[in-house]
């Protein structure tokens, strides 16, 4: 057993770091402005309507929340599964988990019809609502991961990292199950109402979270003249390939199950074949660009190049956004089947594909969530001993072998 002593330091802010920080802060500020604009005028200025009630902000919010629980996986690998090479990444992983969740929740809350009534959501609960459970799961996640970070940073509490890390790991599994169940438990809609949503969302979280982690870590290294060991990048890349394959697997099983049910052929045909933008996003962006291509990259010779792994990570993120878009918006676009087997028409869009064109404020609010997550991460890295010094990283390499 090689004794590893990793030194963590606050990151020195170089010009590149500060420019990036300013950029993300501006993104966050623009997002807040967009939210104010939407709140002031009402949702009439968005593309959302009575048919598509959740739009682009929800795509970003759900993507960030799902990724938040997945990004914690680096820390879990070290604390729970005893994979020491990942230990120097544990603190960044915990910080990013908090940052991404805060960013996602900010978008979700700012999109509410009455965001100023957040106190109502915090004081008045319906305990039968999976949404209300999620409020506890989210706040609990922030508290547990925050404590986990403190434990990691406190030398005499090192012995608690495994139990606290285990609690955090279990909590994140429940949290992602809860997020998936927001859709999985909707009995009304043909595209949702699938128990498979929960494991699918867990696979998605692992994949998106790791992709974001790899890119963030590479970017931070670039800004600080530090490099992640090549061997480790390669390993992370291959892990990403496994997660991306898991997402494809659960997606495949879910659609196959639906295709077997005659009552769901219609919605499946819409999402997979003739629904315009949705099949395009599904096959072209989610499956091909965001699934098969990154898997091919990381398992080919190209998978040894950090640049190619960065590309694979970016593709997973793009594919992930497309996937959430298809799930959330594609699922609503298919009309509710109140009268099965009948041709239906009304003044309220019954029997018609629900139209949705995202508006600029929605996009800006969503990007604002990414800005918030990035600012939180960068401030954490700047003011807390999050990142390992080069020495620590160098020492760990032999242990990884």
């Amino acid at each position, binding site marked *: 057993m090689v004794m590893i002593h990793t030194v963590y330091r606050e990151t020195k802010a170089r010009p590149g770091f500060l420019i990036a920080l300013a950029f993300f802060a501006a993104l966050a500020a623009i997002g807040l402005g967009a939210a104010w604009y939407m*709140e002031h*005028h*009402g*949702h*009439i200025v968005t593309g*959302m*309507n*009575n*048919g598509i*009630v*959740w739009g682009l902000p929800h795509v970003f919010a759900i993507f960030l929340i799902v990724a938040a629980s997945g990004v914690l996986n680096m820390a879990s690998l070290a604390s729970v599964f005893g994979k020491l090479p990942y230990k120097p990444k544990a603190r960044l992983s915990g910080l990013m988990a908090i940052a991404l969740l805060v960013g996602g929740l900010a978008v979700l809350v700012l999109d*509410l*019809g*009455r*965001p100023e*009534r*957040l106190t*109502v*959501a915090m004081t*008045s*609960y*319906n305990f*039968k*609502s*999976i*949404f*209300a459970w999620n*409020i506890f799961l989210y706040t609990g996640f922030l508290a547990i991961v925050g404590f986990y970070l403190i434990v990691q940073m406190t030398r005499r509490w090192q012995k608690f990292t495994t139990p606290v890390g285990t609690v955090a790991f279990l909590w994140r599994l429940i949290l992602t199950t809860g997020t998936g169940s*927001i859709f999985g*438990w*909707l*009995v*009304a*809609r043909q595209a949702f109402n699938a128990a498979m949503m929960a494991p699918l969302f867990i696979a998605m979280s692992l994949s998106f979270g790791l992709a974001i982690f790899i890119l963030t870590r590479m970017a931070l290294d670039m800004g600080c003249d530090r490099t992640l060991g090549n061997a480790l990048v390669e390993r992370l890349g291959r892990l990403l390939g496994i997660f991306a394959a898991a997402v494809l697997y659960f997606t495949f099983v879910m659609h196959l199950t639906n295709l077997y049910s005659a009552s769901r052929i219609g919605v499946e045909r819409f999402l997979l074949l003739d629904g315009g933008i949705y099949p395009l996003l599904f096959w072209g962006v989610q499956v091909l660009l965001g699934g098969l291509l990154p898997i091919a990259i990381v398992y080919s010779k190209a998978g040894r190049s950090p640049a190619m792994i960065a590309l694979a990570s970016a593709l997973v993120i793009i594919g992930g956004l497309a996937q959430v878009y298809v799930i959330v918006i594609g699922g*609503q676009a298919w009309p*509710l089947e*109140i*009268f099965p*087997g*009948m*041709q*239906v*028409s*009304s*003044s*309220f*869009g*019954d029997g018609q594909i629900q*139209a949705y064109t995202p508006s600029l404020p929605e996009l800006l609010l969503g990007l604002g969530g990414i800005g918030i997550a990035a600012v939180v991460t960068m401030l954490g890295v700047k003011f807390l001993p999050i990142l390992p010094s080069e020495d620590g990283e160098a020492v760990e390499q032999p242990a990884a072998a």
Partner: protein
Amino acid sequence: MSCGTNRDCGCATSASPGVDAGRRAFLKSGAAFATVALTPTVTLMAFGAGDAAAQGAQERLNPAARWGLLIDVSKCGDGCNECVTACRKENGWEDTGHPATDAQWIRKVTLTDPKSGASRELPVMCQHCDEPPCVDVCPTGASFKRADGIVLVDKHRCIGCRYCMMACPYKARSFIHEALIDQKPHAPRGKGTVESCTLCVHRIDSGRNPACVESCNATGGGAMMFGDLNDPESAIAKRVAELASTQLRDDLGLDPGVHYVNL
């Protein structure tokens, strides 16, 4: 409460379709309520509620009732929009020229059988489910079911998350996308909250029929009937018992308070 679910308890004595009369009769027989409803499941709570009701509260809702509608699709006229117009006028929701975002509490739906080509029309509104999914999913408890079965949004608690709209199988709910002015005093509505058919709860509370039912019977096809489904003596309960009625999406087991015949 046990009385509300027990059709044989005899507490709802009024055969009158008038809501208020029925309620008053029920409340006056407060003593009967306490004694007749004495089944093994009756607790002290039932007595407490009975007492409270007897003391003050002609003005409170009747917890034994389950208000519902019976819609005879064969009488619902093609192109007739009386119920929709009446609801608009009563509750103040109107066409602002934004069809995708305008609220619609009730709408006429046209069904065509692709095999036979036969078509018919029917009104669809909040179905006032006994097991409403919108109430289950609402994080703050703003979506709720009154003791008399009417499903409402408490707009003081609604944060505008629209999860209820995701959960409703009937597309019954609308989100208010713009600021409103000059709302009806009895039908408060405002930007950023969700709303749906209230079954004209303000009318029911003062013993009147919902606006859609009133207008359908006055100038429409006379296709709609309103009443207490829990009262076996009520006209609606008798009709529901004798005519095999259907409920929309009955596969979901939500037990809507709106029944359709000849669908």
